[in-house]
């Protein structure tokens, strides 16, 4: 291997590592706030990418029907209580389950997104995927919010299987690739840097900074961190666990959808590709012990690099090598936590 190949592999690794880092952050956030190990994180990636691809092929993405169906069920389940409560809360509820879905349906069915520019199509795809997060939290996880971590994990696996199945129905078995955001490319020394990789890196960095500012500087961000740190303390301040859960899931969906839209021009995405991508983010999150955001992001970057270099040396084993990384990490983690117990 010469320097040029190494640089090329490193560039590849950093680009996919950036995506895994985003997913790792979403997984840590969801777990910290709701204790759900969110296996279906990757499905948001696939839904984001394939929804965008559907617009470009002039099809109506099934994501819209899922959004409408979930909104309708929530209207039936929560409608009566919201009606009794009345006032501003009821209007807000209606905006979420009637107005927003209606706007989305109008945009997709009447707005002819096929003819829209790529950035507008991307935003519409994101707007379709984002509400799935809080909707799925409301219907799937909120009723069992107090259950054990294991039970929440099993529910997450079930939801993952359901979403993959729906993905097959919505988008078919063929893979899709979307055109890149930028055709530009630059030669830096002997290395060719594509505009799309810069898009991925820039957007990931932007999202990470935005998340950081939200959690450090805003009251709602602090409220979410407080829930993750001390559930009872947060509830006593009037921060509802349900509210925090919905926000965490909204972030998970936005991050997943955005990741999908970003990588759709780089890799071909199938209805079930999301799972593998999500798992790699999960390996990163595990490196951070499902608790530390910076370590999780660094771990995910490491996963990206490992994957890219092992695809050069032993491409048949590249997935094996990436997932083997989890074993020494787990050993090291359990050894470390054992030490702490002894000290106490």
């Amino acid at each position, binding site marked *: 291997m010469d320097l040029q190949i190494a640089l090329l592999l490193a560039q590849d690794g950093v680009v996919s590592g950036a995506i895994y880092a985003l997913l790792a952050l979403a997984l840590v956030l969801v777990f910290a706030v709701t204790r759900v190990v969110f296996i279906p994180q990757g499905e948001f990636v696939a839904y984001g990418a394939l929804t965008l691809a559907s617009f470009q092929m002039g099809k109506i993405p099934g994501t819209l029907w899922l959004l409408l169906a979930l909104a309708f069920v929530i209207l039936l389940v929560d409608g009566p209580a919201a009606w009794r409560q009345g006032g501003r809360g009821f209007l807000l509820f209606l905006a979420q389950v009637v107005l927003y879905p209606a706007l989305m349906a109008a945009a997709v069915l009447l707005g002819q997104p096929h003819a829209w520019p790529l950035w507008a199509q991307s935003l519409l795809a994101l707007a379709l995927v984002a509400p799935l997060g809080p909707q799925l939290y409301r219907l799937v996880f909120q009723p069992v919010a107090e259950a054990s971590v294991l039970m929440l994990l099993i529910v997450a696996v079930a939801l993952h299987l359901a979403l993959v199945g729906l993905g097959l129905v919505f988008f078919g078995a063929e893979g899709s690739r979307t055109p890149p955001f930028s055709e530009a490319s630059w030669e830096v020394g002997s290395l060719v840097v594509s505009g799309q990789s810069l898009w991925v890196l820039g957007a990931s960095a932007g999202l990470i900074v935005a998340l950081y500012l939200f959690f450090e500087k805003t*009251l709602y961000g*602090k*409220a979410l*961190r*407080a829930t993750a*740190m*001390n559930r*009872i*303390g*947060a*509830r*006593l*301040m*009037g*921060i*509802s666990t349900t509210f925090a859960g919905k926000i965490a899931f909204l972030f998970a969906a936005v991050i997943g959808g955005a990741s999908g839209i970003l990588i759709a021009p780089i890799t071909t995405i199938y209805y079930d590709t999301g799972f593998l991508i999500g798992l790699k983010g999960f390996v990163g999150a595990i490196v951070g012990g499902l608790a530390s955001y910076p370590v999780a992001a660094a771990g995910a970057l490491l996963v990206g690099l490992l994957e890219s270099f092992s695809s050069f040396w032993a491409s048949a084993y590249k997935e094996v090598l990436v997932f083997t990384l989890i074993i020494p990490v787990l050993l090291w983690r359990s050894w470390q936590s054992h030490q702490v117990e002894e000290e106490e």
Partner: protein
Amino acid sequence: MSEALLEVSDLSVAYGQIEAVHHVSLRVLPGQIVTVIGPNGAGKTTLLSAIIGLLPCKGGMVRYAGEAYARVTLEKMVAAGMVLVPEKRELFAEMSVLDNLLLGAFMRRRLGFRDERQTLATVFALFPRLKERAQQRAGTLSGGERQMLAIGRALMARPRLLMLDEPSLGLAPLIVREIFRILADLAAEGVAILLVEQNARAALQLADYGYVLETGEIALSGRADELSEDARVAESYLGQAAGCPVA
């Protein structure tokens, strides 16, 4: 007699198998300090948890601020100005003292108030120590400072009813005296206080009215000065006959 801010009638709470509360009734008037004393495991914490909605009630009724609740929900109670300082403090250990305090005003902000900076100034005036440590992580505070932060965070919600669970636990007598002096000041400003304490002597000195809770039931109640004179209370809780030291 003025209208009670909190009126609990015939409340029963099941909490696993160990602690329970049976048919408890009590009332707190605005600006009044009411204490619930009793031995460990009598159900004092369970009682407070049920009143604010952390635990479900099995039976009975809670009337608070003119509204009757058959099923209490935590969020409604906090929104109506009821605040609990729990026994374990439940601070946000990884966050700064300032952030802990600002989160205390979370519900007020949701309700549309934007006065947390003024409230913060009054809290800092009450606890100058918190102002000095504003940027420090809550987890690094000493026991007394933690209790001050827990109370300060509760005050950020501008409570109408402040409930405290064992605020003196594990604290030096000097700090306990300071905290109790602040509670008296708050009551003078019109805040109703419901204080659960094992430190019966200090609690009865501070309070206007007292209840003795034993194995989940109200064994005795009366004006605080009368309760301190009561032979049974003196023997069991003030340690006069048994010689049990009370700080």
